[in-house]
Structures are given as structure tokens and as C-alpha cells.
């Protein structure tokens, strides 16, 4: 098992957001996390990648406890996080954004090889390499955010709503990439409001509602429950 979260409670000041969440992601699996706005999905991701400290509960990544580990060390271990709302560096070029994503790579050669692999997957990034990230359209920035996280060849990718603001074709590219990651042996944990698109690629789905997991299962079973929420 690549990620095991058990009985996780997380809150901000007086507000309890996650009320005892248990989930796991197996190696090579695409797991979707869906649920209404405000149910705690992003909070769960932030806790897993070390940006928020849980009140109680455990988080194990590759068998090791990480709930006390800081975010950079977690990234080093192979857990990458693509936050919601395309947090690229707008005043840096596309190329520089990718360099920053690969800052842990030791040699210039490794960096440039990895960049070439990434750009082969997303040709638009090659085309716009010298443009400022802030001049890209919203959807292009989204692609850049995903590509930047891929620079360190993570074992597990957390994707927070990758479909946000992308056109139908880019959406296909995004979900093709998710499938490709799985084929390459990378596990993917993904938050999505575009439920139909994510259920088409997910192996397993968790449904989160007001801080509790209320359902878990294969996409076919969960779709009906989500519609009734």
C-alpha cells in the first residue's frame, strides 16, 4: 500500500473539517475523491502532503509515518501535490517553472532530460517555453502545474481538481496523462468535480461529505450515490 490514512482529524481553529477519515491508495491505483464543495477534500490533501498538521490520526506513505514530516521532505520521498487553482509562478517563464519543479534533480543533464520527456507529453509547453507563465491561458497554466509536479518523477501524485478551467480537448489530455501515469506505475489520488470524467479513469472512489467518508467503492456504485447528494 502506498498511502494509508487512518482516523484523521484536521481542523482550523474552532472549525473541525475532517472528522476521522480513513482512506488508502494502493500502488499503481487511480483513486478519486469526490464530494460537495466544503466537504474537506482539499484539507485532506493538504494534511497528506504536510501543509496542515492533523489533530489526531496517522498518515503513512510507503509504510512510513509522515504526519510529523515537513512538506519538503515528503516531496523528496516521492509524493507530489498539484494544488487547486494553478499556482504557477506568473513572472517566470514556462521553462523556469519546470526547472523549479525539478530543483532536487542533481545534474543539469538529468534536469534537461526530464524536461524533454515532459515537453514531449505536453507539446504546448515546448511551444511556450520562453513565455511568462502569467501570459498563458488558465488551462495552459493548469497543464504547467501538472507538468511541474511530474519533474521529480513522483510515486504518488495528488491532483486537486485538474479539470478546473480547461477546455474539452485539454481535459482529454489531462485524463490521458492520468492514465499514462498509472501505466508508468505512478499512483494518482485525484479530487474532481467533473465526476463523469474522473469516474471514467478511476479504479476506486471515495465520497466525502462534511468531513466523513460516506461511501467507498468502484466508480459504477458511487456515481449513483453522488447524484443523489
Amino acid at each position, binding site marked *: 500500500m502506498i498511502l494509508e490514512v487512518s482516523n484523521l482529524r484536521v481542523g482550523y481553529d474552532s472549525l473541525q473539517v475532517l472528522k476521522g477519515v480513513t482512506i488508502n491508495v494502493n500502488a499503481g491505483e487511480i483513486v478519486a475523491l469526490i464530494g460537495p464543495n466544503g466537504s474537506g477534500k482539499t484539507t485532506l490533501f493538504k494534511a497528506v502532503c504536510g501543509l496542515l498538521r492533523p489533530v489526531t490520526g496517522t498518515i503513512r506513505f510507503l509504510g512510513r509515518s509522515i504526519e510529523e514530516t515537513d512538506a519538503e521532505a515528503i516531496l523528496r520521498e516521492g509524493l507530489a501535490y498539484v494544488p487547486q487553482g494553478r499556482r504557477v509562478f506568473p513572472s517566470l517563464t514556462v521553462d523556469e517553472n519546470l526547472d523549479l519543479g525539478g530543483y532536487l534533480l542533481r545534474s543539469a543533464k538529468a534536469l534537461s532530460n526530464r524536461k524533454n520527456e515532459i515537453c514531449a507529453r505536453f507539446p504546448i509547453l515546448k511551444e511556450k517555453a520562453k513565455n511568462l507563465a502569467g501570459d498563458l491561458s488558465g488551462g495552459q497554466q493548469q497543464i504547467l502545474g501538472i507538468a511541474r509536479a511530474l519533474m521529480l518523477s513522483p510515486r504518488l501524485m495528488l491532483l486537486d481538481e485538474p479539470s478546473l478551467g480547461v*477546455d474539452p480537448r485539454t481535459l*482529454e489530455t489531462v485524463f490521458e496523462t492520468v492514465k499514462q501515469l498509472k501505466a508508468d506505475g505512478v499512483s494518482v489520488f485525484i479530487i474532481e468535480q467533473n465526476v463523469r470524467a474522473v469516474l471514467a479513469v478511476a479504479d476506486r472512489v471515495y465520497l466525502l461529505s462534511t468531513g466523513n467518508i460516506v461511501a467507498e467503492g468502484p466508480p459504477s456504485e458511487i456515481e449513483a450515490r453522488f447524484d443523489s447528494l
Partner: protein
Amino acid sequence: MFRVEELTKRFNGIRALDRCTFAVSSNTITGIVGPNGAGKTTLFDVVTGFVAADTGSVYFRDRNIAGLPPHAVARLGVARTFQLLRLYRDLSVIDNLLLARWSVALPLLMKTLMSPSRLSSAEYQLRSECRLLLEQVGLIDKFSALAGELSYGQQKVLEIIRAMIANPVLFLFDEPAAGLDPSMKRAVGDLIRGLKEQGRTVILIEHDLGFVRDLCDQVVVLDQGAPIFIGNPEALPGDPLVRDRYLSKGAYL
């Protein structure tokens, strides 16, 4: 009531808008769709004065508003929302909404400040208006919460109702449905339909074509800075150019 003519804007050699021309009738909902990078958000930026066009005109109620600063455009009765949210994160939900009204209604504010009793009655009325909108979108329990504590989807809906509180004639919504769960998406759709019923005019950018089809009277497909299709949303999937440039094979549509 609204039209853009030959609008052109270049950024660092990229032509974001390229002689873009189309018109919107009063009391309709127009959807702007198109590939990423087609110039949709730039169009909103130019119309609302955040970015100056290189050439071309923007007519709002027969007046060329191209080149006016954002606050002047807002005072004329044009409100917009942003793809990336611009709320006051450290203020409460209700204060974000109250500010939206007072910042455009300066004369009203001056008048009410002169007379404290009128201020309290105006504020009371505004508060109940806000309360009603928050109830409609299921955010009433967040009335006093800080805006920055809301989830992304909730902040997005708050931005939409903040635009409504400003009470404009023309609304520009940048991806109002993106990131919303099905029930919030329905609520936002109902709010937008309600604006049309009140005689307002709406232009929205959206990638969710189902949402566009359900709501819009007219759809404009932008590609490389200019419309390649203007017409009824039902006719969209049948248009060869639109299929070629924009639609996917249908797998995730």
C-alpha cells in the same frame, strides 16, 4: 445593448484578441466558449477596463467604453467575476457582500451617511437581500465566517453573489460553474436564469457545455482571438469548424 467591434490586443507578440466582433442583445444570456488561450478572459479584461485594447471599440448602451478605467465601467453597471478569486479573505462573508454594494453606490452612501436612521434601514434591507441570496446557494450558515475559510467552490459562489449585490445591468461571469458540485452548479444556474428574468444581461465564459446549453440564448466560440461561430447552442455540435477546432472526441463531454 452591448457589442465589441474589431477588438485587438497583443501580448508580447501573441495576438490574444484579433479583430473580435460580436453583439449581445439586452436581457439575454450569452456563453463564450473556446479552447484555452483563445482570448476569452482577455476579452473580459478589455471590456471591464483592466487591460487596454490596442484597437477596436466596446459599446455598452451605445456608448464607447473602451479605455475607461475599471471603476468607471463598474459605475456604469457592468460587474464581473474572476477565474481566480478576488475576495477580501480576512473579512466575513457578509462584509464582502456589503462592500460590493457600497463601493459602486457612492451617492447612495453619501446620502445615507447624512442620516443615520436611513443608513440603518438601508443596511438592514441590504443585509436581508444578502441573507436571501446566501440561502439560495446554501451558504447561509457561513454568514459570519471569514471568506478565506470557505472552500474554493464556496468562495466562487460568494463571488457570484457579490457581483449580484453590486446590482449591475450587465454581468460578466468567468467560468461560474467550474469547480462546483452538482447541487451548487444547479443553484448558480438558477441564479443566472433569475437575472435574466429580472431583465439583466449576462455574458459568461464556460467550458461546461451542458451548463451553456441549458442556460444560454446565444453562444460565441472564440478561437485565436476571434469568433468562429455565433449562434444557437443547439447548433454548436453540428458545426464542422467548431468540431475541428474545439470539441473533443466526446469521451469527456
